[in-house]
């Protein structure tokens, strides 16, 4: 039905080392500045923020640990750890995540080096287009590729290249899952590497050139070592995202009987039994362990490779490609065509055919699928309404937590900032499917005192979204606070303005653009979310992601394609809205910009 952890992987680029950032802040003056001011904020602020973060970050983890432990102790769920299906899922998870990581590193590194270091033309457009696969929901990516490559592909049929009907779909395999995970997560490597390449500033490269090194030597001796940490970090993020991805293996693996850990959790939950809670808790713990192992490996590999920029760095280095430039540009465009244009074209084509397997031409083109989902099917409209409600509530509601939390984390230092930093990292470090399981376990029982159960209502999805996307909302706001001169607030204090007054008059106007970006980003990701809602939805609370997944599952691939096309249009429009805001945003909020 649904895929959910894709969402997590898609916003993994937002990962930001809050704690290391606090520590690495320039010590002398910033250290003094961050000192606690007498009565800088009202007394309720710290308990409010701590309470929210406890509920969103720590409580689900407790429930997960409790259920897993209970499952082990009671013995009802321990069998899941020794089943052959579990072993197969672990093996498949490792294979697809590793394969996906390799594909991501190859494509991501090619784009990052070309865009960050050379003089190829149209860098902003290339970056924007290359980021799109990450923002498009994974289930839509998977559908588009299936439409592109299958025997029924309207695109291939139209071109006369389609394999005969009845031949196997090549993507329904471990290779296919790996390839699509690679495509989906290549932007993560791209972003990590591009950030790392800012450590090879132009003056460093120029100094090496003046020392007598040829461009090739400079690349080997200066650029490559400096970019290695970014490459390692990107590879690790791609691996962890692959481990937690649900959408791609759900669409490609389930029809072929290939289970990975996230889809195994999903099928276990669907066939609900006595030991299910303990089983899914244990299975999600397995995912968490594999993800943690990947991150630990990354830390080992990164040890001793902390190359900070020393002194002022000019612009990024630029290598002139000379007569190879058109060739490199052609390769980049060809890759974009293959991973972006062609699948989306296939998706559009599939949404326009009147019936499965009919070739697309001017006689057969039809908008019937759109008419069906937009007018006739109450289910898709309900899903659209649910998704818009959930995404809007999450986007605006999270600001109420993100702004005070970012304020405290940048203005205070010591245990409070450290505690907040750790709390925020918890839901972020966990793959989304693990988080969804944790929320099922937290809210399966009726709430104490109120005696109402959130399970099965739309509210459990909303709370899970709050937890899932807290970091997405926090990052732009945090950047705005970090880049804001603290003396702006201090000047307002000396002018006589109390906390709420200077919040209203000085701080909120200054973080408003970043808050706007946070709203759009959360909305963008939440509206397409599948992994969380796949596990948490029930009749009447399906989301857009669930609707696409269910349409495809029930064989209505044309309707699924049409809905997917609408989703892609929405993604592109929202990204364009962010791009329009770009000049008002703090640096680093928009991933496709330098």
């Amino acid at each position: 039905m649904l895929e959910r952890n894709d969402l997590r992987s898609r916003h993994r680029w937002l990962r930001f080392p809050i704690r290391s950032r606090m520590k690495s802040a320039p010590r002398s003056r910033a250290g003094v500045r961050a000192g606690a001011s007498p009565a800088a904020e009202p007394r309720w602020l710290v308990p409010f923020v701590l309470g929210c973060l406890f509920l969103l970050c720590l409580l689900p983890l407790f429930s997960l640990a409790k259920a897993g432990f209970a499952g082990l102790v009671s013995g009802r769920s321990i069998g899941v750890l020794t089943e052959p299906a579990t072993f197969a899922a672990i093996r498949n998870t490792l294979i697809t995540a590793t394969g996906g990581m390799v594909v991501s590193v190859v494509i991501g590194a090619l784009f990052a080096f070309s865009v960050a270091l050379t003089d190829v033309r149209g860098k902003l457009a290339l970056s924007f287009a290359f980021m799109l696969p990450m923002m498009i929901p994974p289930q839509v990516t998977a559908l588009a590729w299936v439409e592109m490559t299958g025997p029924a592909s309207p695109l291939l049929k139209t071109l006369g290249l389609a394999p005969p009907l009845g031949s196997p779909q090549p993507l329904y395999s471990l290779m296919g899952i790996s390839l699509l995970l690679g495509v989906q997560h290549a932007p993560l490597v791209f972003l990590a590497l591009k950030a790392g390449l800012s450590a090879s500033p132009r003056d460093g490269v120029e100094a090496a050139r003046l020392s007598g090194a040829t461009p090739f030597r400079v690349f080997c001796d200066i650029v490559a070592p400096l970019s290695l940490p970014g490459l390692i970090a990107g590879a690790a993020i791609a691996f962890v995202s692959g481990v937690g991805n649900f959408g791609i293996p759900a669409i490609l693996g389930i029809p072929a009987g290939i289970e990975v850990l996230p889809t195994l959790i999903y099928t276990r939950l669907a066939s609900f039994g006595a030991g299910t809670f303990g089983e899914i808790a244990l299975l999600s713990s397995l995912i968490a362990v594999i993800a943690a192992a990947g991150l630990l490996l990354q830390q080992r590999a990164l040890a001793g490779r902390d190359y900070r920029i020393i002194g002022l760095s000019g612009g990024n280095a630029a290598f002139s490609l000379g007569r190879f430039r058109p060739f490199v540009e052609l390769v980049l465009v060809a890759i974009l065509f293959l991973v972006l244009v062609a699948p989306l074209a296939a998706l559009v084509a599939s949404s326009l055919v009147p019936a499965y397997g009919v070739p697309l031409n001017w006689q057969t083109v039809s908008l019937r699928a759109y008419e069906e989902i937009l007018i006739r099917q109450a289910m898709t409209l309900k899903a659209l309404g649910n998704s818009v409600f959930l995404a809007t509530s999450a986007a605006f509601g999270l600001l109420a937590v993100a702004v005070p939390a970012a304020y405290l984390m940048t203005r205070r230092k010591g245990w409070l900032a450290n505690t907040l930093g750790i709390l925020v990292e918890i839901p972020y470090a966990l793959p989304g499917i693990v988080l969804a399981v944790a929320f099922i376990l937290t809210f399966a029982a009726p709430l104490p005192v109120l005696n109402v159960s959130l399970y099965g209502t739309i509210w459990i999805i909303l709370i899970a979204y709050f937890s899932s996307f807290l970091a997405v909302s926090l990052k732009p706001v945090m950047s705005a606070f970090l880049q804001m001169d603290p003396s702006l607030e201090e000047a307002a204090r000396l002018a006589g303005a109390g906390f709420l007054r200077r919040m209203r008059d000085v701080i909120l106007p200054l973080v408003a653009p970043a808050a706007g970006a946070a709203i759009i980003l959360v909305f963008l990701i939440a509206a397409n979310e599948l992994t969380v809602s796949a596990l948490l939805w029930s009749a009447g609370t399906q989301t857009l992601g669930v609707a696409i997944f269910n349409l495809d599952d029930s064989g209505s691939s044309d309707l699924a394609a049409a809905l997917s096309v609408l989703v892609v249009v929405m993604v592109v429009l929202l990204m364009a809205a962010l791009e329009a805001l770009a000049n008002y945003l703090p640096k680093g909020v928009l991933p496709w910009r330098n």
Partner: protein
Amino acid sequence: MAQLILNHLSKDFGGGRPAVSDVSLKVRPGGFLALLGPSGCGKTTVLRMIAGFERPSDGSIDFGERRLSDASLALPPERRNMAMVFQSYALWPHMTVAENVGYPLKVRGISGSAWQRSVADALALVKLTDYADRRPAALSGGQRQRVALARCLVTSPDVVLLDEPLANLDQHLRKSMEETFRIFHERSGATMIYVTHDQAEAMALATDVAVMHEGRLMQMAPPAEIYARPEGAVVGGLIGRGAVLKLAVPDGAPRGLEWPALREALSGVGGADTQPLRDVLVRPEHVRRDGEGMALRVMSCVFEGERFALTLALPDGQALKAYGDSAIGPGDTARFVVSQGWRL
């Protein structure tokens, strides 16, 4: 007008040496105190404690009868009736110049024509009347500085704090801003605390100069006094461009040394066994070429425009600074008289 009193003020951020330790001073009412010292000496931390952005680890700050802060109590900055010019100016980029200047009034509930009049007066004083509707981003560095100053002016604060306000301006603008500060001080009658690492600025503006070093207050005195009679090698080395020499000076000698005594000490440098060595400050303007003087070798000679700056070597190798009207080649020897020295 009340007096600002710092009483055994200390601040420890928990990183080894305290940022400020045991600083006690009184600023005369309506005075202009310059806090002078190298970067990292704790002067900005003192300023921020006076403003209320930092709480002292020990000691207290009083304004007249009113306790502003000590280790357990701190009046929040918004209730101290102080104003500050920040090094970065801290102008709010989303407000116009007039809104920036008038914000303290707005917070105090003043609006309408009273607000208009006060803001116009403040802007007129810093000659920015024509810029009232611009945003800070559209102003030059010096203009932003003056907006920040006008914002301090508008509410008649008890204390005005200035945190290296000229650090980001070029040499020419600094001179004219110094003049503006002086006028501002005369008009407002407020107590002013001025943090700087530039001794020329401190000397030119302040009624009192307090020298800080490694978190401690070394000396506080009027500018002329601190220049003529510095206490200790740190202050002596920091104020002016003098050389601190180790000379054998007799026990009973006065602190201000004249040429005969200095001649004896300078030439007797070799035979220091009988007398303990003491720090003696010799300012370059007191070293002049004179046929009567003692022969010293010139180590370097740098042309500075209005004069030549010379570095001379004493017989035992200590370096002495002097000014000269004409160039002397390095390695040459010339005769010099040292008319004054000050035992630190």
